[in-house]
């Protein structure tokens, strides 16, 4: 057991900084409202460092406070799908050796989301931060379908091309549209009996691996993920699946 608390300048002081807006015109009373609100959240030693009007009927606050809460970090396990990534050359070699054919990867930004930045970073030849995208891999046949692709169109394309891997991207998260779209894709693949045949991954700035696994994906990749990290995961998971089927 190892209990951890926020650290300001002394171990276990529990210091946190908060900032929020209240829908009320600023006054001394608004500062007091902010202080009481933060106290109600369970914080102690609440200090409203800054409170001021930002529009009629709205005030912005910066608050420092301490929390008595702590967390046992020995009980937390979060898989990191991006660990120990191989290089493009290593991945190509591995595919050539183990699969003796090209792997087919199909990706898209699904639903009405028009942001290709995530899927492009992983798939486009150019890649991201000097790490080449999947299109550049000799042993990967990569199909980037772009943005605003319906889950039906993505599933259909994946079936036609006998995809080994499906990548679904979501950038817009307003009102849970990302989760709704990710869920719709899993459900469709299950209904079409395709889910077990592919490695299914999701990505986006707000995606976490935990969320992805809850939704029924093999893994999820967030902001800053490199193409080689995704490719490494795909190859390893496909190998695991192959062993499983063999046994």
């Amino acid at each position, binding site marked *: 057991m190892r209990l951890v608390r926020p650290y300001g300048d002394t171990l276990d002081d529990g210091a946190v900084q908060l900032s*929020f807006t209240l829908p009320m015109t600023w006054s001394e009373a608004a500062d007091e409202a902010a202080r009481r609100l933060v106290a109600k959240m369970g914080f102690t030693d609440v200090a409203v460092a800054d409170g001021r009007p930002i*529009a009629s009927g709205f005030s912005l606050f910066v608050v420092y406070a301490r929390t008595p809460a702590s967390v046992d970090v020995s009980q937390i396990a979060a898989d990191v799908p991006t660990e120990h990534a191989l290089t493009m050359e290593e991945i190509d070699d591995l595919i050539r050796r183990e699969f003796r054919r090209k792997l087919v990867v199909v990706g898209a930004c699904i639903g*009405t989301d028009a942001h*290709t*930045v995530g899927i492009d970073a992983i798939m*486009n030849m150019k890649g991201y931060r000097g790490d080449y995208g999947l299109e550049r891999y000799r042993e990967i046949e990569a199909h980037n379908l772009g943005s605003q692709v319906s889950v039906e169109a993505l599933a259909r394309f994946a079936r036609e091309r006998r995809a080994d891997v499906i990548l679904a991207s979501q950038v817009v998260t307003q009102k849970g549209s990302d989760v709704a779209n990710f869920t719709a894709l899993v459900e469709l693949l299950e209904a079409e009996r395709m889910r077990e045949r592919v490695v299914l991954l999701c990505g986006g700035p707000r995606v976490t691996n935990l969320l992805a696994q809850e939704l029924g994906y093999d893994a999820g990749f967030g902001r800053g993920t490199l193409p080689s990290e995704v490719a490494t995961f795909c190859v390893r998971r496909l190998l695991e699946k192959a062993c499983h089927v063999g046994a």
Partner: protein
Amino acid sequence: MELRLDRARVERCRALASAIAEPVHRFISEHSTVSVERAVLRLLGVDGVVGDEVPVANAVVDRLEGHRRAGGAAHWIGAGIAETGRPAHEVALDLAEGRLTFEALESTPREMARRALEPLVRAAVARVRGRRAEREALLERLPQGEAPLLYVIVASGNIYEDRLAAVAAAEAGAQIIAVIRSTGQSLLDYVPYGPTTEGFGGTYATQENFRIVRGALDEASERLGRYVMLTNYASGLCMPEIAAMAALERLDMLLNDSMYGILFRDINMKRTFVDQHFSRMLNAEAGIVINTGEDNYLTTADAVEQAPAVLASQFVNAEFARRAGMRDEQIGLGDAYEIDPDLEDGFLLQVAQAQLARQIFPRAPLKYMPPTKHMTGNVFKGHLMDAMFNLTSVMTGQSIHLCGMMTEAIHTPFLGDRALSLENARYVMNTARHFGDEIAVKPGGVIDRRARHVLEQAERQLERVASLGLMGAIEARCFAEVSRSPSGGRGGEGVFERSEEYWNPLEEALRPGLSDAVPAAAVVSAVAAAR
């Protein structure tokens, strides 16, 4: 701060842009699109929806086929008025619902239809001009303050929340408010109707939504003693209709690009070229400032490499806009602060690019976009990056300044995010107001060399585009590294060739304003002389 510019090279770039636009322009003048026709109907007073929320303008134009469509939609409304004596919107409704057929109007002489429409055309033009005069009077009485004009977005999905956020942002110092559209609207081949309260990543652009926010901002403008501008998006498949609605509801700016839809939304290029032209004719008359979308070249690829593409696109966008009758003062060419923050001297490269655009397009109200691509969940660093962007903007005299949000990578802005962003911009711009006037660019230094390089490369790119033709160049991945074919993309089926008798009364009424635009031949000869 002044860059030493190779003026002859700038003029060659302009001449190349003109040569690039010329053949496309011939194509434009021989074609129309379903969205251009719908925009005409809307300007003539056709509004509302039928059946399952289908706009009347769509229902009428969808029923037009072959030679009937090729002659333009306006004629049929005119013919209907001439034959029935009823107002335009009733004629349109009857045509939409099949109570009145095109067969029944087939024998109406075109001259008669034209005469019947004349008062409506005059009224439409008067209404657009009236809105423009209203804006001019408001700006006279309620000056909007110094540039760079601070521009923020609202994007809740619910127009009533947007209205509240827009007013709050205006009170916090915003001079321009953009209501971001729901993601996916650009691909709808109709404009939704009425006030809307649901959308993803933004709020649907509808005429009623325009009216709601414009009304709230007019009240706020009076209260604050400065006119607050409103912006939306004339892009996607309904570009001309949005331009029409914006003209009618006194929007002040529109995001409008001659190539964005082709490259980034896979909209058919012929559709986009024809649509952007008519949209910009309307914008020209309405006194609306367009914001072009060059920032997209930088968000989707490396910003250092793409700088020449931005400049080349600015030349092309400006040329198309001028050919639609827009004055330089209406052409808000785009650029963005998207260079990797880890790159040493990245700030110097940003300054070079921003100053280059400022000097090449001295009268254009340049639109400067904040960092987005390299923003992360680290809001503290993000706030600093925005401050550097603010500094670049004020020192290079940018005109329209989209304020960066420190929560860019996290969520659509909170009310408090906007206030902090505006505070950041006001602080930096005030403390460094005349910094740009006080410094000189070191000859042969990083900024000087960078500006020279970008201009040279832009000229090279324009030469390549001119030799391939614009449509061929887009197919050959000259822009944004994507290839689009002239026959591919969405909405191509909505483009049609004009017949001999094609009639667009609005185009006709607006065209006289074009006479003083497009000095293409003069530019070309000036370049020849310079050589």
